[in-house]
């Protein structure tokens, strides 16, 4: 291991030590939400950022993951599902992803983006009306398994870290190259031997799995969900896009930066302004798209690349 790798581990160690440094439930709650949104942003980024398949309805997967755990607990499983429930939530979301992807990814253009938006609304209405299964609009409530937030902190951290690791591994291997090729030009990708339908589906499967697992975690952590929360278009689907765009789509750390800023700003608005954070984010995203179309991390990377080129040109002159 090189010195540089060791240095890179330092921030990870610091993040791991946060629950030792503070026992404040409020601060831990903020950190847990940030980690949750890092997972959501990263998941959306794989499909929307790297593969170029925009989804306006990732709440579908989040909600299915959340309801899978909720229904399991309601039907008598102990709430320790905080652990293995995540896996099941992810799997059921991936099954839904497989169905919609299998149908829509034969087509190009906006079909997938709009179908998945419709899907999340359909699922929300099902959750409202299928009262025997979901308890309808009243939602599902249970007592979370752990009273200490420290456990949840580490679960959320593990989920975000595994998601990060999986995406990095995928992006360095064949499927990752194929995802990028599909984003850049699907005709070209096909003629280079890429089964575009299949690889778009692979990207969606990973993305929906981790979104569903995050939904399951949300249920376990908050102890309460209703259809309006977990299938929300503005609060989940749009925010996942916003977090990614804000930090920088198709960058390694963009979703992380976006998630932290998102949680910070939402909290500032909640405490001091009361409401209006959605309006603020709307304005913010317009500004980002106009001035930093590649997001905060993207802008920094562009700036560094430009400086390297300039100094290279300078040393030649």
């Amino acid at each position, binding site marked *: 291991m090189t010195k540089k790798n060791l240095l890179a581990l330092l921030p990870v160690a610091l993040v791991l030590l946060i629950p030792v440094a503070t026992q404040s439930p409020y601060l831990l709650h903020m950190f847990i939400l940030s980690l949750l949104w890092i997972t959501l942003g990263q998941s959306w980024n794989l499909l929307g950022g790297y593969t170029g398949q925009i989804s306006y309805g990732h709440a579908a997967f989040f909600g299915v993951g959340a309801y899978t755990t909720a229904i399991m607990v309601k039907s008598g499983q102990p709430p320790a599902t905080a652990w293995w429930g995540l896996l099941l939530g992810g799997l059921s979301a991936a099954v839904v992803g497989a169905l919609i992807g299998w149908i829509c990814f034969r087509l190009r253009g906006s079909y997938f983006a709009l179908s998945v938006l419709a899907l999340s609304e359909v699922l929300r209405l099902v959750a409202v009306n299928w009262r025997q299964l979901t308890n309808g609009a009243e939602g599902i409530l249970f007592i979370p398994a752990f009273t200490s937030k420290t456990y949840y902190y580490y679960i959320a951290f593990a989920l975000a870290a595994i998601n990060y690791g999986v995406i990095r591994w995928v992006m360095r291997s064949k499927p990752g190259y194929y995802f990028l090729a599909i984003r*850049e030009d699907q005709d*070209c990708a096909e003629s*280079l031997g890429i089964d575009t339908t299949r690889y778009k589906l692979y990207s969606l499967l990973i993305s929906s799995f981790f979104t569903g697992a995050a939904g399951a975690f949300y249920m376990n952590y908050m102890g309460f969900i209703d259809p309006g929360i977990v299938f929300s278009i503005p609060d989940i689907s749009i925010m996942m896009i916003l977090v990614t765009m804000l930090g920088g789509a198709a960058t390694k750390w963009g979703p992380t930066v976006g998630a932290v800023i998102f949680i910070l700003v939402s909290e500032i608005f909640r405490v001091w302004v009361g409401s209006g954070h959605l309006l603020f984010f709307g304005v913010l995203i317009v500004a980002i798209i106009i001035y930093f179309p590649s997001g905060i991390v993207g802008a920094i990377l562009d700036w560094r690349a430009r400086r390297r080129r300039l100094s290279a040109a300078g040393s030649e002159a």
Partner: protein
Amino acid sequence: MTALITLNDVTKRFGGLQAVGHMTFSLNKGEILGLIGPNGAGKTTIFNLINGYYPPTGGTIFFKGDRIDGLKPHKVCRLGLARTFQVVKPLARLSVLDNVMVSAFSRTNHRHEAEKTALEATAFTEMDAWRDVKAGSLPLGMRKRLEMARALATKPEVLLLDENFAGLNPTEVVSTIEIVKKIHGSGVTILIIEHIMRVIMSISHRIICINYGEKIAEGTPREVADNQQVIDAYLGVADA
């Protein structure tokens, strides 16, 4: 001589417009076959039919004895048939090497093998110096060459070259001719569309001329150049 690609009475209509009509020809193993014709004659459509981008309206296409009409482009590519695009399609935000690696992955699942193939293909097409440049910022000449490097990295038996010389300066034309000859020398059979007569006449073994989607002449470069129908198609018919 064995035919690698055979088109049998292939027709393609877009609505009421017939782009290719009753096209029948074979590409023989080891040859360089030129496809010429005025603008809009249907040359690129023939590539799109062979490559699987369009299904034909009628007729059959065979590659090494197997029917390939109706197969998707990625399947055709895997059978060993690569193409370049006249309107170049670089994966703009990827480096040249990554572009070529994407296509090299069609023959391997391993990153280091794909990288090795990509390095070979970029060296073969004399693009070494451009490897780390983003494909979107390449000059046109290099974009055309990237098309060839990518096609080569899929390790094809047959290569369809669609106007790889258009827009090149004279020096680039000469070096590209050398590269095409080198590719052919390595055992790849080539079907080439080209407007620059000097190029097509010098490298083709055989030429087919089409006009309004139909074949009007076929033969050696000399025979085709002397054909009255070909001259009429290019220069128009003189008033009586």
